[in-house]
């Protein structure tokens, strides 16, 4: 076996993404030099992706506990208790780089991967979300990437029969060479049927099931190295291709196996495939593991131990069974026409051992791959937040700006996307894409889960701490706006190169902000994922710590939606409006500048306002709510009008700065609409609670009218709002931002 005897040169070490100090540490831990297979195993286990070596010390500061948290970070996904013996299991993960190389397959396998993380814990996936960031619309690659990513997400999720119910999409030039594809999966399980990955005990069979192993996704640089040239052509690394059909069978078969009590531990094979799943299971179980690679179901001939251990072929799982239960399990996988093999056994040696063709090809203490992995406190530089209020033309006509904003790439309707996703399969979707949060019923009950993903990267860039906190606050606000009690979040931290102090400063700041907001809002972090090194030509992306939030509605009959519902409802604004335009969509789209301070955040006010609004919805007194975010007050009114197919006449006496009033992005605000009598009570109660409140006008008609003077037809706004995406994607229009 050439791969065992190969001399490991500094070049080979570097190709494996390891620095000399790390290689030295491997030698020390092993008490000898590693062979090629072992080097490969270390390289993936010690990679940023698997070891979180740059972020771990900071992630530890996040709040992860609450009475309803069953499982925080550390497993495949987080778990919360939603009452009546039901558990909600969810997680978000990135597939940024693969989606840039091959948008369809990259996005599809991203969806498949996150679903496996959720069903490997015993949950049936019930909803999918996706948070996407692309380069500017005028960039030649953008349309191709949007098209491929969206059809890849749909292609995989639709086949799985899990509704894709929401997400977010931004365009910005910093993503030109580095798009972001973050997918989130939410599943349901019973609290007494949650499966973990700790492979406890010795002598238990380790079983492999799902699809066969091929040479998919093995680290390009390492594969290019010289020692693999004997059967060259066949051995090139290949892009991972998703097989949603196999995944659907894998889901059903896994849940069927879980209905027995044969499983000790189970884990999907995600990044770093067989290596990380087996090593992590042994590590968490405090045991050892021995694998016989000859038993691994293989798709291609002449696969080496290195390839099998590092392959990222999709739709595969690893489980540890109770002894003697192999046949029972095998029967299930036969029924579903999936591969099944016993490929190893747990031991009490605390070693990770792999055999191939009669030889030991890797023998490593398990802790060397986990606890002993390097952790770095990388130097970071916290820059002063961007500040100041940029000047803008205060006399610019408001409604013309509104029309332009409604058709801006970041604001236009995403219907073109969501209509390609099956968002109603499973028959429990109560709020489809297009509202504040998606709402999915807990099958057969009155309960429902609200789900959202949020972050405003331009704020994070301006001020990482406030921006990180704002992402959490906005997620919390979106859940609140439908009437849900926000319960927990999963994060997906997308940043540039952490070895640059400035980028590390963004990471540290964002985590600090996320932690502060989660603490203030009682909204613990139960899982997450980091995607670093998102850079092209040395330019990092806008820092994008995406937050996936989940909340619970106890009775979905008491739920709010954004559309206006009745003529003559009073439109009420909750929260303080100062007209903050720094870093706003208005400033960027209308004035063409990305400047100033991001809006400040008052977490105490945020909580107070949200709790007030949610209380009204829960009491059955309020059914029309929209939170304010990108684009501010007037955009929110327009969205409520378009959704409800009903206009409104709004205004206020003596507005000093109309632009700031209508388009400022002050935080902690909600718009409500309620019939007159109820509205009067709501306003009085808000005043009594010292919550800033204002009556803005009445619903009705087929236009937005400001201060009884200027108006714009909903038809015009709708054409602007609905038109941009289809025109852009059909190639009719490649807008250039002014």
């Amino acid at each position: 076996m050439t791969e065992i005897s190969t001399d490991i040169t500094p070049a080979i070490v570097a190709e494996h993404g390891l620095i000399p100090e790390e290689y030295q540490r491997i030698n020390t831990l092993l008490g000898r030099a590693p062979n090629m297979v072992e080097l490969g195993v270390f390289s993936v286990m010690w990679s940023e992706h698997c070891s979180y070596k740059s972020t771990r010390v900071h992630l530890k500061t996040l709040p992860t506990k609450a009475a309803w948290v069953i499982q925080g970070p550390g497993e495949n996904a987080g778990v919360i208790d939603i009452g009546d013996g039901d558990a909600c299991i969810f997680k978000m993960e990135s597939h940024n780089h693969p989606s840039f190389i091959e948008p369809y397959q990259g996005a599809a396998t991203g969806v498949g991967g996150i679903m496996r993380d959720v069903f490997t814990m015993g949950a049936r996936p019930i909803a999918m979300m996706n948070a996407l960031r692309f380069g500017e619309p005028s960039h030649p690659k953008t349309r191709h990437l949007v098209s491929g990513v969206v059809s890849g997400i749909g292609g995989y999720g639709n086949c799985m029969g899990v509704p894709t119910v929401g997400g977010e999409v931004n365009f910005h030039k910093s993503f030109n060479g580095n798009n972001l594809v973050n997918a989130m999966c939410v599943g349901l399980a019973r609290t007494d049927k949650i499966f973990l990955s700790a492979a406890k005990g010795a002598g238990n069979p380790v079983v492999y099931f799902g699809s066969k192993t091929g040479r998919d996704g093995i680290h390009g640089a390492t594969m290019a190295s010289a020692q693999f040239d004997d059967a060259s052509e066949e051995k090139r690394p290949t892009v991972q291709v998703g097989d949603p059909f196999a995944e659907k069978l894998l889901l059903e078969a896994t849940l069927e196996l879980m209905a027995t009590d044969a499983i000790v531990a189970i884990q999907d094979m995600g990044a770093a495939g067989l290596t990380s799943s087996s090593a992590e299971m042994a590590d968490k179980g405090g045991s050892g593991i021995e694998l016989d690679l000859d038993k691994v179901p293989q798709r291609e001939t002449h696969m080496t131990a290195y390839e099998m251990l590092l392959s990222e072929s999709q739709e595969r799982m690893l489980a540890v069974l109770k002894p003697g239960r192999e046949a029972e399990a095998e029967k299930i996988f036969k029924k579903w026409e999936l591969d099944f093999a016993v490929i190893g056994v747990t031991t009490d040696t605390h070693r990770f051992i792999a055999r191939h063709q009669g030889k030991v090809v890797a023998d490593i203490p398990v802790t060397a791959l986990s606890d002993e992995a390097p952790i770095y406190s990388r130097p970071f530089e916290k820059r002063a937040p961007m500040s100041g209020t940029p000047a803008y033309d205060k006399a610019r006509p408001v409604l013309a700006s509104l029309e332009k904003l409604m058709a801006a790439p970041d604001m236009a309707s995403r219907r073109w996307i969501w209509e390609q996703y099956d968002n109603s399969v499973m028959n429990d979707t109560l709020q489809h894409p297009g509202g504040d949060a998606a709402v999915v019923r807990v099958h057969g009950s009155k309960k429902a889960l609200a789900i959202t993903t949020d972050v405003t990267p331009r704020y994070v860039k301006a001020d990482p701490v406030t921006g990180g906190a704002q992402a959490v606050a906005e997620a919390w606000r979106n859940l609140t706006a439908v009437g849900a009690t926000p319960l927990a979040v999963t994060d997906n931290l997308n940043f540039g190169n952490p070895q640059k102090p400035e980028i590390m400063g963004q990471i540290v700041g964002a985590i600090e902000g996320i932690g502060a907001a989660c603490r203030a809002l009682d909204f613990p972090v139960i899982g997450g994922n980091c995607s670093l090194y998102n850079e092209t030509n040395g330019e990092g992306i806008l820092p994008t710590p995406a937050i996936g939030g989940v909340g619970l509605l106890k009775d979905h009959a008491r739920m709010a939606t954004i559309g206006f519902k009745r003529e003559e409802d009073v439109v009420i604004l909750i929260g303080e409006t100062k007209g903050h335009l720094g870093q706003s969509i208005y400033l960027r789209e209308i004035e063409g500048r990305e400047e100033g301070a991001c809006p400040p955040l008052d977490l105490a006010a945020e909580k107070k306002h949200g709790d007030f609004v949610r209380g009204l919805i829960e009491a059955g007194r309020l059914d029309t709510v929209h939170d304010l975010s990108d684009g501010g007050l007037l955009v929110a009114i327009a969205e409520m009008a378009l959704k409800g197919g009903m206009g409104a006449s709004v205004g206020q006496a003596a507005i000093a700065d109309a632009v700031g009033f209508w388009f400022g992005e002050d935080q902690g605000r909600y718009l409500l609409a309620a019939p007159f009598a109820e509205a009067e009570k709501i306003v009085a109660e808000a005043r009594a609670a010292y919550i800033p409140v204002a009556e803005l006008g009445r619903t009705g008609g087929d236009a937005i009218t400001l201060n009884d003077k200027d108006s714009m037809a909903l038809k015009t706004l709708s054409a602007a709002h609905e038109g941009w995406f289809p025109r852009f994607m059909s190639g009719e229009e490649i807008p250039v931002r002014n």
Partner: protein
Amino acid sequence: MKAAVIVFPASNCDRDAATALEAMTGKKTAMVWHQDNELPAGTDLVVLPGGFSYGDYLRCGAMANQSSIMAAIKAHAEKGGAVLGICNGFQVLTESGLLPGALMRNAGLKFICKPVALEVTETQSAFTRNYAAGQAVTFPVAHGEGNYVADDATLDRLEGEGRVMFRYQNNPNGSARDIAGILNEKRNVLGLMPHPERAVDPATGGSDGRAMFQGLIEALS
């Protein structure tokens, strides 16, 4: 009415169909595995559910049509038993020859999921008896290959014999003559692309689908 829902590998609206039927009939629905050879005794209605049987690989419905349960379904239809094919189920029915024509890629080449307005064009069947002729209903669609094609003679015949049961009001997929659902000659097998089982609850997809199941219950009980 005793209903059976067929489960093919990667069917994914099987539970939705069963849930809708159970809500309407108050009775348990039998779930029948594609490798079975027989339907449960006394089955009145067979539902071929939506989904991506065999991943929609090769052609939608092609591989499901090779399942062992199909012989029993054909025999059931032959005897006059009711068969309802929804979405992927409709594709299986055309592949099997139980219904004429074929379903091709949507004209816009994209998967489409949205509520669509339909006209109930014919009421002469157990499936549509509880609708009024010409009634407008809304069912969700969710498919990538719902573009119905058949030669002109077949289309003329379907229309002439009153076997076009549902038409799109705004054709979303390029279907010939706006066809959304058709009946077989004996009027006991219906295939349609829209999802009536997703329209039985006002909280989710509206309730226009209820009349279809109510009609079946009345006709088959």
